[in-house]
């Protein structure tokens, strides 16, 4: 069971690097969506005995992260008629290298932290830390609003990975509330992206410089 899980986490970690290296927005969105689907499958692999609960969480996650949110982003992208994030603040190669370094750092960090016996052989903690780091890197390093939203999605994916450590010990109500909040957050962000596009005729956040000291 842990092997299957580790395989999925490894896949998600690989997707981090793909995301860091991709300049085309459609592929970035696709990577974030695919990572979401991979994450959605994990509860099923982890705790088959949870049954209905795991199934519910899994299908809600796959639906949201794999279909609804990427669809929203694609619509915004088409409306803005942009395909590429051409001039990132942190270049593609440096961010790839940073991402790889972050992955190693995540493994080192996870070794320092005390884990429960059932989590000792799993990649959950390093995977979560590396994904959170990737998300932050995209948030800081990219200049198009849509790529930043993708960064936020990947950050969220990392947190979700970490949340899997607590699967079964947090009540469904809390999990549901968290999922709902995050979904609404992305919806609201989508609306604001749309308005920015209309107000500035661009989704380049470097143009948002009217407010400064």
């Amino acid at each position, binding site marked *: 069971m842990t092997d299957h899980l580790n395989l999925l986490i490894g896949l998600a970690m690989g997707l981090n690097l793909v995301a860091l290296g991709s300049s085309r927005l459609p592929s970035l969105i696709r990577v974030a969506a695919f990572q979401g689907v991979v994450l959605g499958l994990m509860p099923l692999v982890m705790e088959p005995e949870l049954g209905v609960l795991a199934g519910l969480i899994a299908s809600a996650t796959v639906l949201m992260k794999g279909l609804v949110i990427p669809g929203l982003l694609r619509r915004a992208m088409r409306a803005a008629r942009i395909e590429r994030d051409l001039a990132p603040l942190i270049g593609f190669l440096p961010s790839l290298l940073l991402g790889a370094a972050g992955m190693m750092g995540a493994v080192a960090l996870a070794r320092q932290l005390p884990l429960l016996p059932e989590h000792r052989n799993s990649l959950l903690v390093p995977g979560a830390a590396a994904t959170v780091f990737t998300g932050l890197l995209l948030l800081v390093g990219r200049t198009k609003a849509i790529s930043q939203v993708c960064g936020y999605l990947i950050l969220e994916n990392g947190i979700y990975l970490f949340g899997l450590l607590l699967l079964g*010990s947090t009540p469904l109500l809390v999990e549901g509330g968290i999922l709902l909040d995050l979904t609404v957050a992305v919806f609201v962000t989508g609306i604001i992206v749309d308005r920015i596009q209309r107000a*500035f005729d661009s989704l380049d956040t470097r143009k948002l410089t009217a407010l400064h000291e």
Partner: protein
Amino acid sequence: MNELWLVLTPLIAAAAAAAWPRNATRPWFLPATGLVHAGLALALLWRPPPTPLHAWLGWDALARAMLPAVSLLFLGCAAYGVPYLRLRAERSNRVFVAGFLAALGLISAAHMARHLGLLWIATEAVTLACVPLLHFNDTPRAYEATWKYLLVGSTGIALSLLGSFCLGYASRHGGGTGNLTFAALMAQGAGLSRPWVLMAWVLLLVGYGTKMGLAPMHTWKPDAYGEAPGIVGAMLAGGVTTVAFTAVLRVRAVVEAAGAGRVASLTLLAMGLFSMLIAALFLLSTRDFKRMLAYSSVEHMGILSLGAALGGAGVWAAFFHVWNNSMTKGALFLSAGNLRRAAGGRTMDEVSGMACVTPRSAALFVAGLFAVTACPPFGPFFSELLVLRTAFATGRGWAAAIWLGCLLLAFCGLTRVVFSIAYGRPRRAARQLGRQFPETLGVIAPPLGLLLLALWLGVATPQILLDAWTAAVAQLASPP
């Protein structure tokens, strides 16, 4: 179960306002809900119901010490909202009124949340409910501010979710049963896994610190406060920040019970002093009077953080300061809204002589300046004095010295901006605009009322509040 109505009433009112067909009468939902909420909150302040130890949501001592302040501030803002939205009659206020009411309900829920997960859910929901309020002015600048608020705020709040998970894992690693109420976590105390607790503390402090606007995570604040309408700025500065402060206090109590209180105090102290320093420096350079209020808010969050770091009497003083901060910020933002409308500008370069154009608002703004810079007899003077005394008493004289230096700089910065817009010769644009926006009772009474409350808190702090703050300090200090 009366306390549940503090959450439900505003949410129901928000739904009703969203469905209400008439734009002209919809704003009346604000003061009506504000009255009910404030009445209920004050009644609960006097007669607190017993809270079951492991309830997820409850009127505990901490909620009792903080929430009534937000409730009174909301009432002031709501009363101002009716004349304000009448001035903006050309725009639909459906989303604005509904969002404003929903924010109140969610703020109440966050103050009363006694469960780690519920606290996060409510705080995130408050953040999202405020988004449509920020871009009500519908300008490109407003969208820019909203984008920064969303991006920085969402990242911060996401990190606090990660921190919450870490705390949950600390509990599980220490043999916890998965009960993530703060009471249970505090009871587990030293049983929590220490490395995970420290990790959780860092993430939660960064996350909720972003919402409070502690430096260096304050970058969204000047933009958001500068672009949002006055009543929204007041609610953000005096209401939403208190939610994050409650969260920090609740988490800190757990960290302290886990035996890492020293680390928590040191980090809070460092962030508090850094916030005050950053705020003081930016106050010396800003020329925009609404952004000035944002930096002043950063400074006051620093004071709260410092008070919390000192523990015991410092936390008590921080509760006192929460009340003072909410009232003075309310008065300042509302009067600043009046000035901004009549002046047609927002910086020292565009605005001067407002004392001739809008004498009452300018007088309120200047009086508010003295209140916020801790001049007696306003409340902030007494609460800041108390923080200062605690700092000396606990042997942190150096921190107090740095703080006093920052206060002096902040005073210079604030008076520089305020006097230059209030006095001098009014500009021609302001003379014409001033006639369009007369100072009616509706836009003067709310900030005046809030300022008088700040004064009253200073000269005659009600005994019931003193007791409430003492009870809250006791709840934070001792594991149940």
